[in-house]
């Protein structure tokens, strides 16, 4: 009997050990600082737009995409998430951060004090962003205004409150590479910066992307209704029609994009026609 208890105790301890090991945060000393001093604000502005930062973080109740006071609420199966203030305000936003903290947030989904962010912040896509682009984005960020609005707390359902467990989510779902790596420029745009899959790919019970149904649409991860499939089997649009939609918002039937996608199209307006063509080619090549 005692041996049995001891065995179970050892197993439990080992389990806790494995959990702690898997969910451990990254060390800030792992941040590569090689690009940290870049000054490419133009590129940073483009990254800002295509990555759609403002589409979730802009101060609610006003239209200026550079006011990043947050406040947008996301109703999910795990509870309500509230987009935080990520303006340059040192107290309410991220104005007190350095490049390393910014990098860790985007690339690893990790806060300056080593806590995991919830994956409602699409770092599982942003992890594809190149170090040079993160640095350019940070350079751009330096000129953004400070917004004083305090961030709200998330209101989450029981087990989802255990932030440390998000480390396990990362272990399960953080991508090693691109889902569809060819061509590289298109994958970088679609899977990285523009993070299309975050809404257009269905999620499993733990909120991970179901890569077997890549871009095939699913329940709206942040509210009611469904997000349409953009897989060519379902969409049936030509290359030109996709480019037209990404430019004017008009579908081939001259319906006009609405809701979050209207914001996305607005922010993708910084892309050249060639880059929109790359997105179309990526989608049309999906199997």
């Amino acid at each position, binding site marked *: 009997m005692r041996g049995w208890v001891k065995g179970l105790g050892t197993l439990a301890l080992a389990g806790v050990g494995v959990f702690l090991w898997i969910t451990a945060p990254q060390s800030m000393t792992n941040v590569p600082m090689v690009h940290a001093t870049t000054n490419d604000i133009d590129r940073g502005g483009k990254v800002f737009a295509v990555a759609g930062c403002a589409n979730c973080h802009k101060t609610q109740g006003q239209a200026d995409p550079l006011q990043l006071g947050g406040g947008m609420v996301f109703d999910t199966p795990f509870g309500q998430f509230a987009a935080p203030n990520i303006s340059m305000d040192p107290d309410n936003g991220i104005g007190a951060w350095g490049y390393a903290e910014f990098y860790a947030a985007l690339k690893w989904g990790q806060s300056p004090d080593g806590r995991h962010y919830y994956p409602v912040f699409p770092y599982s896509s942003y992890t594809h962003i190149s170090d040079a682009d993160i640095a350019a984005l940070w350079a751009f960020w330096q000129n953004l205004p400070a917004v004083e609005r305090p961030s709200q707390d998330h209101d989450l359902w029981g087990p989802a409150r255990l932030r440390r467990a998000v480390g396990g989510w990362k272990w399960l779902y953080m991508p090693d590479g691109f889902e569809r790596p060819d061509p590289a420029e298109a994958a970088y745009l679609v899977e990285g910066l523009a993070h299309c899959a975050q809404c257009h790919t269905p999620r499993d019970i733990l909120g991970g992307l179901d890569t077997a149904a890549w871009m095939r649409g699913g329940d709206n991860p942040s509210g*009611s209704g469904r997000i349409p499939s953009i897989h060519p089997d379902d969409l049936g649009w030509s290359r030109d029609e996709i480019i037209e939609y990404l430019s004017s918002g008009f579908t081939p039937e*001259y319906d006009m*994009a*609405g809701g979050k996608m209207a914001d996305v199209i607005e922010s993708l307006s910084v892309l050249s026609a060639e880059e929109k063509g790359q997105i179309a080619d990526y989608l049309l090549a999906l199997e």
Partner: protein
Amino acid sequence: MKLLKLALIPFALAVGAQGLSAHEDVKDPNVKERMMLMSQIAENTKTLGKMAKGVMEFNEADAKAALAKIAELSKAAPKAFEVQGDDPKSEALPIIWDEFDAFSDLSMTLAADADALAGQVASLDDLRANMGKIAGGCKACHSKYRE
């Protein structure tokens, strides 16, 4: 001639049925009505879009008629949205009924723009120069009030 017309009937029926089928599983009559209205706006915008892109030959009378129709439908839109209704197919956001006046104003702005253009557009260049205004009118409302 009569033979030609007869031959066209199945075609016309098929096209008509297609237009209806998109909304046939919408149960709430209020929702159905406004979805049909929106589809008609899209149909007329499509005429303009195809002309602007050169897919369809520019025709002044048709362009003006499409613009006048868009104006007429946009004027009718707020009334079609008065009852919120309840249907899973509806993509109208509840905020419409929180700020119905602002919502109506956007529709009336599109109606006024389309009305003005219906009196002006005389050439393909006119249409191309103003296509953005129509698109902007659609977008202004959809980006705020549609899923």
